[in-house]
């Protein structure tokens, strides 16, 4: 496989191709809508078109699995072209172990999300699919950007379609939720823009023009004060995105109001952009600040609060979508713990949670969407005993919930186990506290499971629920395969991330030491 990919120069064109395919696709779908109108047949064409574009995108992206050198922790498949020369921005993209699995997760989840909304999105179908395709470009762009200005542009590009997806195709309180989502993340990311411009200018000083190249900025020797404020700006942008406690309240609203595909993408991918930002930017650029004892401890404390608090609040949610949303706060708390504990095992674990949560929670939202489409209620108490009428749905929901609980044999266990066993070496007590989240996760998910699919089938409306159809079953199968594969044989995935995780841990650790020796950050 690798030889074949080399023969077609795969690495030289794959990343721009991944960004261009959905962009062009978006234009095509939009134009088709303008020409063919909004009829039923035209809408179906838009769905099919989008699905095939995203399947093509996925197939093209799979080559990354083989084409990257696992031993190499550097940027690979780099593509670099001048962009806006006057500003010093370049169109530079690349991947490494930190981002390659995120790219593949995105290309996998997108067609599934489209299939998930196949019959539930019935208005402005072209617009919806056009936005979904742009969203794909934006998310992939963030994961592969090697130029910080490009990173910022992509960051905003993905914000806009999501705003519309929630605001137009969302639930009853969609306007409130979408505005909250937009203002929250926009406000937080504006500070990031300022920080990026500052960095670009500073890095460009020797050249006489700004440069936003990742490696150039990485090589900067910033003053402690500047580092501190810049870290703060990035922290805010990323922490809102993750979301970390207490910046999380946009998430339940956005999740609940978003259409199924929106929730899947929000939970599956968008949240990971925040943690990815920490891994890619906040830690490597400002190791002295990030690893400064009280900063680091504060962030880990917030992460552990997120785990416990998210779980406890999830426990009492009457709305299943809100429950899943709060469970995301808990899972992402594990990611932050893994990142800031900064051991190879814990960072690998954090990356595994990022992938695994994308699958499990993505699947949970798909399943909730599937049942909502039949009953039009998200209230757990409106269900009960439905395993008897929808056995296939119940079986798959159980498997997915168990992976979210972290049952061994599924992705959830591997990921959380790695985070905790690694984090225990640097933060034993906080890690032990976070481990109580393992108990709470079982409590809230099994309780919800019981009230939905077990107990007595006592609601008349539920007695005639149709089970999954072939489309729904088919779109869940790849996720189930992923859940079990990552739980039983995660080695190929871990291997692909190992070198980069190792490099991150070593570089940040070493640079933090160096910076600490040369600076005094106290008194703030």
């Amino acid at each position, binding site marked *: 496989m690798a030889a074949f990919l080399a023969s077609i120069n795969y690495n030289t064109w794959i990343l721009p191709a991944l960004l*261009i395919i959905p962009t062009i696709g978006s*234009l095509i779908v939009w134009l088709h809508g303008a020409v063919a109108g909004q009829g039923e047949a035209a809408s179906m064409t838009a769905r099919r078109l989008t699905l095939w574009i995203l399947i093509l995108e996925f197939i093209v992206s799979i080559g990354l699995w083989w084409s990257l050198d696992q031993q190499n922790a550097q940027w690979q498949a780099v593509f670099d072209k*001048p962009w806006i020369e006057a500003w010093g921005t370049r169109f530079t993209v690349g991947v490494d172990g930190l981002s390659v699995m995120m790219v593949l997760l995105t290309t996998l989840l997108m067609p599934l999300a489209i299939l998930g909304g196949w*019959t539930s999105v019935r208005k402005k179908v072209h617009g919806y699919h056009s936005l979904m395709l742009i969203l794909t470009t934006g998310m992939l762009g963030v994961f592969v950007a090697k130029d910080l200005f490009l990173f910022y*542009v992509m960051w*905003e*590009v993905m914000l*806009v*379609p999501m*705003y519309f997806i929630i605001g137009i195709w969302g639930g009853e309180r969609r306007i409130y939720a979408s*505005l*909250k989502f*937009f*203002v*929250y993340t926009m406000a937080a990311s504006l500070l990031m823009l300022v920080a990026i411009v500052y960095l670009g200018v500073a890095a460009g000083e020797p050249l006489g023009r700004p440069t936003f190249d990742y490696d150039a900025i990485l090589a900067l020797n910033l003053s402690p004060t500047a580092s501190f404020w810049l870290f703060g700006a990035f922290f805010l942008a990323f922490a809102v995105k993750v979301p970390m406690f207490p910046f999380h309240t*946009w998430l339940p609203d956005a999740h609940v109001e978003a259409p199924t595909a929106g929730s899947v993408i929000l939970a599956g991918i968008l949240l990971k952009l925040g943690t990815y930002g920490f891994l890619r930017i906040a830690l490597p650029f400002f190791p002295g600040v990030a690893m400064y004892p009280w900063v680091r401890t504060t962030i880990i404390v917030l992460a552990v609060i997120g785990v416990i608090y998210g779980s*406890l*609040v999830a426990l*009492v949610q009457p709305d299943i979508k809100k429950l899943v949303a709060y469970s995301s706060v808990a899972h992402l708390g594990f990611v932050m713990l893994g990142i800031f504990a900064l*051991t*190879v*095992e814990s960072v*690998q674990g954090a990356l595994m949670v990022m992938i695994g949560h994308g699958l499990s929670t993505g699947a949970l939202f798909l399943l909730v969407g599937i049942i909502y489409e*039949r009953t039009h209620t998200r209230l757990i108490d409106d269900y009960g005993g439905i395993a008897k*009428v929808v056995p*296939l749905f119940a*079986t798959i929901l159980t498997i997915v919930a168990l992976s979210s609980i972290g*049952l*061994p*044999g599924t992705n959830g*266990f591997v990921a959380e186990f*790695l985070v905790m*066993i*690694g984090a*225990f*070496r640097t933060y*034993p007590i906080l890690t032990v506290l976070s481990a109580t989240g*393992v*108990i709470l996760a079982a*409590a809230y998910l*099994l309780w919800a499971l*019981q009230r939905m699919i*077990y*107990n*007595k*089938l006592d609601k008349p*409306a539920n*007695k005639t*629920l*149709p*089970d*999954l*159809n*072939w489309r729904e*079953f088919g779109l869940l199968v790849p996720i189930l395969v992923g859940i079990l594969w990552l739980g*039983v*044989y995660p*080695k190929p995935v*871990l291997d692909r991330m190992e070198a980069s*995780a190792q490099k991150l841990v070593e570089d940040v650790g070493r640079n933090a030491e160096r910076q600490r020796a040369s600076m005094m950050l106290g008194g703030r």
Partner: protein
Amino acid sequence: MLLPGVPVQEAAGAAHPLAGTVADLVWLVPVLPFIGFLVNGMLSLLPATHMGPADPAAAGHDHGHAGEGDADYGHDDHHVARHPYHRIVSLVGPAVLGIAFALTVGIFFALSGAHAEEPFVRTLFPWLVTGDLHLNAALQVDQLSIVMTLVVTGVGFLIHVFSVGYMQDDPGYPRYFAYLNLFVFFMLVLVLGASYPVLFVGWEGVGLCSYLLIGYWYSDKANADAGKKAFVMNRIGDFGFLVAMFLLFANLGVLDFVGVSGRAAELGEGSAVITAVGLFFFLGCAGKSAQIPLYTWLPDAMAGPTPVSALIHAATMVTAGVYLVARSSAIFALAPVASLTVALVGAITALFAATIGLKQWDIKKVLAYSTVSQLGYMFIGVGVGAYAAGVFHLVTHAFFKALLFLGSGSVIFAMHRAYHHTGSHADAQDMRNMGGLRKYLPWTFGLMWVATLAIAGIPPLSGFFSKDEILASVFARRSHSTLAEASLLGIPGSVLLTFIYVIGLAAALLTAIYMTRMMLYTFHGPNRSGDAERQELREAPWVMTGPLVVLGVLSAVGGYLNFPAFFGSVGQKLHHWLEPVTGASALHITHGEEAHLAVGTELALIGLAVLIALGGMAYAYARLKPAALVPKAQSPESTGIERLLEHKYYVDEAYDRAIVKPVVGLSRRVLWRGLDAGVIDGLLVNGSGFLMRGLGWVGARLQSGQVGTYAWVLVIGVLAVLGAFSLT
């Protein structure tokens, strides 16, 4: 090889005498039941599943098949047409276990022929490999794991056969066997895993299957509740297991048994770390093996089908904690405080559960508390470093308790059939509705008496030898042992061991009483089932009684496995068998000498124990008058201490008030409504938004338009830039 402090060489598969023998196929042992799970799972889902219409919304709610869902899952006595695939399920379910058992027997003979002092580790594939962590999916064949595997597959096979008769008329028959096979798969991973994390996979997996099987008749909320309670309480224990693993990895950098055993001494004998590791592991054991304070799930777990209670909640899963302590003997031997805690908690649990067993009316509840109590006994054994004695009791208990549960299953089966025939809704598990069943179920009657005498400790039945071995071990370790010289909470170990011995005797007394009570009320005296029902009471088919006979024989002669040392060359077989695994640790606790009592002392102790057992039985026989019992419906409420025992000391209620309600209340009122919706979202987020809006009042009307416009400009701008770039 387990001698603490002596570095051991890695067990190299290639050089091992078992390499190239049938032991290479050890992976098949768990894989066989897994295949059974897949087959039965398919057979369960395929006929039940009706794929929905392509467009769920357009179809409305008309499509469906509600008519089929009317089968009553709520109770044992649903007589619905047999499942279309019941024949193939009846074949596959038990057969995979039978083959696995045969294979295990082969491995057992290979192992006993090889005289292997080192465990045979069969690495299957790398599992978690990152940073300093190198974990393989590997199975370990040694004297301990093979004993456990024999019990799991052997007793498991008998219970599977029994299940064919017991569950055949259940509409969810394939689902039942799928869960049961899956359970055996995870249980085998648990006992065969070569490292703590692999063991943990099985450990949590059996918890899952326990959850699924307890809640098997899930339409009844009480059953689903019981399953959930079991899972969550087990998870509290699993939390301990996880922390123990974290401690081991942080301090030793290894998690496989060979590595940990070899390097446990590096943690320092009696050090805080090794004590903490032991105590956290024991928290896991308390959850899985239903010890104080995490025992309350096990009696509730009786909501599952009775063969499940026999297999999971008596013979195998609940003994996993005992296995874990024996498996970690190298750690516990160096952590006397942790070991004493294990023994003390085991002793208190043994007595406490036995008192509750005295006043239960549900025949399965009596057996459930008996199981909790007997598990306590096993923990006394492994706690005082008599690992072989603990495992011995584990094995004999698997025989006689499986027999008791399956026997009670026969009784319930007969009662159900009778009540169903007459349309009565009386409780088929309440002993007040039974009585005099010996006439109707003679085989069950006789075999259950064998098991009762065994559990009460009457010679020469199996339970007598295993219980006596534990008590004698406690007695012997009161001096010349690291435990006697240590202290727990300021109390000298020697005093504690004496106390544990006395409690052990007291629990033995109560065991004899409550078991005799159960037998008297069930099988003796007049029948209270009702006149019409009485005509329908009869013995179960041979597919159910057959396994009882086999277990009866095993319960009777199981003592052969480990006769006392004074029997000479036929004695101590299991003890010697397990020596390569636990021998060094056991010796370490007794300062390098075998902890044998003088023959005279031992005989005196045996005499005392037997007298106590006989006394208990005689007391129960003299005091309890089955003839005076009235059926449940006419029974008065009990009062005073009886009421306290009947309500299990109100521990469930206390946990509910002290833990469950406060946590839910705190989460709902304080964290969610108060902090999340109130302070963070209400005050800070929306508050600041409101403030901004006030400031920008002039532009307020345009606000949402502005965002939209901005957004579109951004999209178009990006498209333009990207487009321009792609042209260059």
